[in-house]
């Protein structure tokens, strides 16, 4: 074997090793930094070219384009937990059969639930003792939840993410 080939192979192997490492990091990049803001802040580019006459339709379109795909716990004991959203409702509470079991001293056994309706998620309080808050407002009936607005339950805080 020529010495040159072996030397090239030797360094090539090390480089390949690191390429593997960075490929793994690339695959898991999305949830490496959970809790940090989601990297996808840019809206779909087609709305940029829309005429000014449709200014009122614009935010609605953006919103529909960025449907919620994840429920992320941003504060409290479960901070960092993510739930991938499907078509089923999400129940939140201390009861073991809740979808999201939170061990929070200020949460009720069946505290609140999130229900999807036509692609929009609604939060509904289930008669909890300490109440559910959407941002600062207390939730009294089914309330639509925009992306990125915190739902507060006791010390726990949840957000919908695209």
């Amino acid at each position: 074997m020529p010495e040159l080939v072996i030397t090239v192979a030797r360094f090539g192997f090390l480089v390949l090793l690191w390429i593997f490492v960075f490929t793994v990091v690339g695959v898991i990049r999305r949830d490496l930094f959970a809790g940090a803001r989601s990297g996808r802040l840019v809206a779909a580019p087609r709305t940029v070219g829309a005429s000014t006459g449709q200014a009122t339709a614009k935010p609605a379109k953006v919103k529909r384009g960025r449907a919620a795909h994840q429920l992320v716990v941003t504060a409290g004991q479960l901070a960092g937990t993510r739930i991938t959203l499907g078509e089923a409702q999400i129940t939140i509470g201390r009861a073991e059969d809740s979808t999201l079991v939170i061990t929070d001293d200020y949460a009720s056994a069946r505290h609140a639930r999130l229900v999807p309706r036509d692609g929009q998620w609604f939060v509904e309080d289930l008669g909890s003792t300490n109440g559910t808050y959407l941002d600062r407002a207390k939730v009294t009936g089914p309330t639509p939840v925009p992306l990125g607005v915190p739902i507060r339950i006791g010390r726990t805080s949840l957000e919908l993410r695209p």
Partner: protein
Amino acid sequence: MTAPATPASSPATAGERPGVRMARSRRNAELSLLLLAMALVAAYGAMVEAKVLDTVTPGFWVPAATLTAVFLGMHLVIRFLAPFADPALLPAVALLNGLGVGFLRRLDLAKAAPEERADLAIFAGIGGRQLAWTLISVVLAAGLLALMRDHRSISRYAYTLGLAGIVLVMLPAVLPASISEINGAKLWVRIGSFSIQPGEFAKLALLVFFAYYLVRKREVLSLASHRFLGIDFPRGRDLGPVLVVWAISLLVLVFEKDLGTSLLYFGMFVATVYIATERVSWLLIGLVLFFGGAYLAYVLGDAVGGPFANFYLRAQIWLDPFAQPYDEGYQLVQGLLALGSGGLFGAGPGGGQPLLLPEVQNDFIFAGIGEEIGLFGLSALLVIYLLIVERGLRAALAVRDSFGKLLAGGLAFTLALQVFVIVGGISKLIPLTGQTTPFLSAGGSSLMANWLLIAVLLRVSDAGRRPVDGAGGKVTRPSGPPEQLHGAPTEVIKP
């Protein structure tokens, strides 16, 4: 530029279609990473042969291809049994395991007589044995995935497993030294030509028990406390189990003459308690107890000798390995020299002198590999360990039940601690103790136990990443009244 290796799903259009769930399972990413890892293993094998034999034999790809077949089988099992499991775990572990097999085969090549080197059979030597053990371990891991469809089901056997764990830990200590002692550490059970290390399996069994116990007790452990110096300390009676585990780990230290194993058990328990309670005081108590115990053993070993003498000797070697470089310090000195001669980029696969290292197939495999791939390659291996551990902790964060959280967090931490103990040992950060390097070292027990650990992590991460409305989801439970009835508002308290 778009990177093809990271198949990012487009969030704008993937909204309402149900098929999008399949795209999120990331199994194809796992497959391509696995193939990349196996290409690395094959390249490693070829380079070893090019350097040691001066030519690449036509059959150089056989071990790598066998490993690829085994891991592809595991990939298929995951695809069917745990479709939402973490995509990075299997390829990372497969790469470490494959490089381990490759390095052991390289040792066989170096040991064999020059005329026999070219036609070394595939299952011959320690490399071949390791290949066979890999096959068995992966089959066991796949079996565990098939048997355990829900990780919560093992909590039913928590007490049985806890008892089994303690028996396994204590077994080598009570057996006579002729059966259980190898190289001064009583960690083994030897039956004929077979030797198994029951402690490797005890780790898993004990961790299941710890997780179960702590889920039951976490309220008491985290709420009832005294505040002292700004830190919440637990009540005396709640300290009981911690003290019991501490005593057991010290007994291991004394009777099995092994600091690493005792550090592993104790660290595992303290970390699980910390994960369960989020109290820093537990970490402080754990560290103080362990270092106090180790220092006591050192002092006693100096003054009394007897069962503590082994630990005293190891600490002496650690403090000054060059005091007796051909005698007691020989192993550590050779390891340090190997790492040093490897330098930044190493001598290249097949270019080192690993046979000069004692126990190179076992404890010192990291030094042996390090001589050939250098700091640059070793740090890649360490980052791969880091990624495996990170994926385990991420699985713990994502899963929704406390038992799963504790189990996955504890297992990931145990893996990290084991890597720390052995790599710290050979690089003279801490006193050297005979731990196996997970997935690299020769040895069936260690490989099997660690693959079972990975199977549990895969199962937990599958539960954590599975969409809520998926098969076996929580909302379609047949038993119990509908949740709406439970949740019906019975009282409204105005603020």
